[in-house]
């Protein structure tokens, strides 16, 4: 109640009512002031922290942001064409017994789900939910994935996008946790990596569509790239030597160089570098997720020659 309202409130009152109303107003004002002082008595603002001399432990665990977290910002900056970004691979592309490829593919498929949610495309989300279950089965994690898959499909049918996003996050977390329990930490890392690459690929494409510095700043994630490189370096030798993992590491190093140029120049990631980052992500994804266009053309060309 402001002073004008108070005056209007008092104007129509008898002296007795007026006294009571003023007492009422004072009580509200006092309680308001008390509330304000209670809020003001909250924790003191911290002083500047000397990070180099921090005496405690630094927690090693790195939480990788989900694509939806970055997409949320992009939605605030523009009206991205999410529908054009959905690129669900053919089921046969993801069929393999190679657990490295399966894990990377699973992570990418979950990221695809986040793109489809942004596009609010019910049919595509249902396809992704079903494919995720198949991949989960191939990884021997069908039981862990099934409930999530059903919930993703159900959430999409009800157009409950918050629920679908939360369920996609849960799916990835469950798969990683299950892999950790099975002492397959490397595969858990690959799930995160596959998701991050697919999310970054979509991000670069949408930024390139309508470039500006505010958007390209979203790609400034050098510590995450470093984390993935470090995680690869500490993998089991068998996984470390896997052809895809070797190529992904090379790609990550190239991404890091492009991102770190921003820090050196303090000018932000340029449109050219965003496109270059997109190409690198695409090449990586063609190892285990997207069709390799060049290879497909070569095979097609070869096939045509054979036919002739």
């Amino acid at each position: 109640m402001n002073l004008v309202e108070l005056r209007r409130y008092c104007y129509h009152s008898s002296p007795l009512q007026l006294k009571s109303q003023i007492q009422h107003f004072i009580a509200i004002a006092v309680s308001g002031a008390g509330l304000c002082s209670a809020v003001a008595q909250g924790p003191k603002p911290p002083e500047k922290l000397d990070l180099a001399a921090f005496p405690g432990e630094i927690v090693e665990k790195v939480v990788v942001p989900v694509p939806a977290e970055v997409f949320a910002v992009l939605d605030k900056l523009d009206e991205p064409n999410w529908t054009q970004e959905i690129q669900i691979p053919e089921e046969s592309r993801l069929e393999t017994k190679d657990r490295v490829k399966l894990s990377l593919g699973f992570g990418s498929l979950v990221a695809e789900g986040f793109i489809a949610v942004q596009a609010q495309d019910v049919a595509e989300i249902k396809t992704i939910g079903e494919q995720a279950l198949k991949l989960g089965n191939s990884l021997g994690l069908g039981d862990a994935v099934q409930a999530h898959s059903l919930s993703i499909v159900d959430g999409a049918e009800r157009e409950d996008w918050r629920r679908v996003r939360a369920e996609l996050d849960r799916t990835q977390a469950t798969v990683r946790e299950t892999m950790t329990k099975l002492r397959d930490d490397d595969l858990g890392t690959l799930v995160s990596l596959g998701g991050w690459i697919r999310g970054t690929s979509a991000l670069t494409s949408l930024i390139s569509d309508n470039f500006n510095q505010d958007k390209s700043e979203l790609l400034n994630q050098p510590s995450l790239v470093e984390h993935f490189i470090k995680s690869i370096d500490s993998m089991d030798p068998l996984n470390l030597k896997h052809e895809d993992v070797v190529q992904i590491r090379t790609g990550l190093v190239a991404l890091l160089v492009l991102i770190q140029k921003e820090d050196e120049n303090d000018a932000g990631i340029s449109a050219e570098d965003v496109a270059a980052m997109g190409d690198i992500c695409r090449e990586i994804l063609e190892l285990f997720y997207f069709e390799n266009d060049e290879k497909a053309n070569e095979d097609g060309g070869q096939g045509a020659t054979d036919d002739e």
Partner: protein
Amino acid sequence: MKTEGRARLMTSKITFFTDRFRSSRSLRTWGASFLIVGILNSTVFAFLNEALSIAFEIAAPYVEKDKFAVREDNWSGEIPAGESKLIRHQLFRGNEYWFWLGSSFENAKVTVEIFDSEGNPVGVETFAEKNKAGVRLLPPKTAVYFIRITVADANSAKGETLDWGLVYGYR
């Protein structure tokens, strides 16, 4: 206090099973078994993470009222009473974030603060009440930030470990 916290960890797990084991006698038997196993085996505590449950509990109203999306991935562990830990985390300018910290020790005093890469505090709103705390921020740039968690307990002996769980949400 530590026993109290750990006993509460057990209780929460027992509560989880109540839907299946409605009989109070079997529940008591389960409870006692869990309590004994829990006291003897510290690995059980990692599985029964009540600190995280409390952190999610703090987050719940922000999800319902303010439409924050809470991440499934999180951080948790144990910490010597009165000490701090630092967590590095990538945040994106344009989003709004809340970090919520909880401990299962009801008498614990927890705080959570957030700093940029130069150590400047960047939280725009905080609260800390016993074993629950939170900090909100609007990242001034897309970068890695440092979250400092501190868990103290006046009743705990020096060096005694307390549990903690940290979750975050964005919108």
